[in-house]
Structures are given as structure tokens and as C-alpha cells.
């Protein structure tokens, strides 16, 4: 068995990212889509931390700190948008929100 190294962490990160991507494609509930976006951001965080550890650099971890902060702001704004949308249209389901479709 190979020693656990950078590749193992990157593999977990890539698989988690692909799970989130699949969720964004396949799920139809806005809130669940949002959670899958969080999964993708977390996968990127894991890749940053792994690279930071194995390259002996702390800059990657500072980047993760920034990503976490931006993600928190993004969740707050996005959920406020969903609530405002729900007030107008009484749905959080993407198939009911197609008025901008050509």
C-alpha cells in the first residue's frame, strides 16, 4: 500500500467536488442545490489545505480562511434571495421558476 500523500487528499477532494456537481445538476430543490454548492466549496478548501501542507506554505490556509468567509456571506445573500423568491412565487423548486426561459 502506498503511503498517504498529497494524491490521496486530492482524490477525496475531487470526488467530493464531483458529488456536489452532480447534486447541482440532478437535484431540483433550490435549497439542496445550495447545499451541494457548499460541498463543492468545501472540496476546494480541502485541496487548498492539502497543497498548503505538502508544499510547506501557509498561504493556502489563509486562502481557505477567505473562502470560508466569502461562502458564509454568499449563503446569507443566497438564502435571502430564496426567501424573497418564495414570498413572490410560493416555490423553491427550479422547474417552477422558468419565466426567464426563452
Amino acid at each position, binding site marked *: 500500500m502506498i503511503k498517504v500523500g498529497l494524491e490521496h487528499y486530492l482524490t477525496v477532494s475531487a470526488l*467530493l467536488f464531483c458529488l456536489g456537481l452532480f447534486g447541482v445538476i440532478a437535484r431540483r430543490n433550490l435549497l439542496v442545490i445550495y*447545499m451541494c454548492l457548499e460541498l463543492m466549496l468545501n472540496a476546494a478548501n480541502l485541496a487548498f489545505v492539502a497543497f498548503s*501542507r505538502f508544499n510547506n506554505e501557509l498561504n493556502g490556509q489563509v486562502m481557505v*480562511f477567505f473562502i*470560508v468567509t466569502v*461562502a458564509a456571506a454568499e*449563503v446569507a445573500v443566497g438564502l435571502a434571495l430564496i426567501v424573497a423568491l418564495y414570498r413572490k412565487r410560493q416555490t423553491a423548486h427550479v422547474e417552477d421558476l422558468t419565466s426567464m426561459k426563452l
Partner: protein
Amino acid sequence: MSAGEGFFYFFAFLTLIFGALVVYNPFSRNPVTSAMFLVLTILSLAGLFVLLNAFFLAAIQVLVYAGAVIVLFLFVIMLLDIKAEERRKIRVVGAVAGFVAVAAIAWMIVGRLIWGTRPGSGLPAPTVIGSTSELGTILFQKFLLPFEILSLLLLVAMVGVILLSKKDLK
């Protein structure tokens, strides 16, 4: 296999299982279940961060994600009363096509990009430790301006959320 490697496989397995249950849970289509499994995913990711010696980020991960973000999610789920959504059917064709496309992307990234090039081979042994003091030093010296811009971003987000959640949105 050392204890650290055992812990790696343990946390990696948990992360991927819980992540898959966020995306597709065969027993429940309720968003609350997804949110709960997202908490577990984030906690096991924090375990991976600890294994990578990023102790401060592991704590931040638990506090900000498992604390603040998930509470926000649950709050909105309760507020919107999403129960009616559970009855909808998943469109099978779209889901299968999406799964094939994503599996192809995963194979390209994992098989070709990561294990094809092996970016970790030949690196020196890792010594860096993401303790709070070291991270704070670099954050408030090298990254002071981005840090301040980030605080402005949080202010903008707060004002935007208050504006968006007003009853009569113009």
C-alpha cells in the same frame, strides 16, 4: 499502516459517504435530512483538516459551517415549509445523463490529472503547522488588505440581506 493513515481512510470514507447522502438519500427527500448530512460531512472534513495539521481551520470549519451556515439553512427550511416538494419525481433521464457526465469528469480529474501526474511525488517531508498564531501573523501582515476588503464584503452582504428580506421589495 500507521494510526494517522487509518484515520485518513476513516475520515475520507465518512466524508464521501455523508457527501453522497447530502446529494441523494434513498430514504428521504426532505431538505432537513440533507442539511443534517451536510453537518456530518463538514465535521469529517474538519477531521481531515486536523490530520493535515490545519488546527485553526478545523475549528473555523466547525464554528462557521456546522454552526452558522447550517443553522441558517435549517432556519430557512423551517421558514419556507418545503414539505410539498417531497412528492416530486426526479427526472431519471436527466439524472442519468448528469451522472455519466460527472463520472467522466471525475475519471479525468482523479485518474488522469492526479494519479497521472502525481504532484506529491518528490516533495520534502511536510513540516508546516497551521496553528492560530502562525496563521494570525501571516493574515495580519501579508494579507492585511484582503482581510480588510473581506470585512467590507461582509458589511455589504449584511446590508444586502436586510434589503432583500424587506416585505415590500421594490
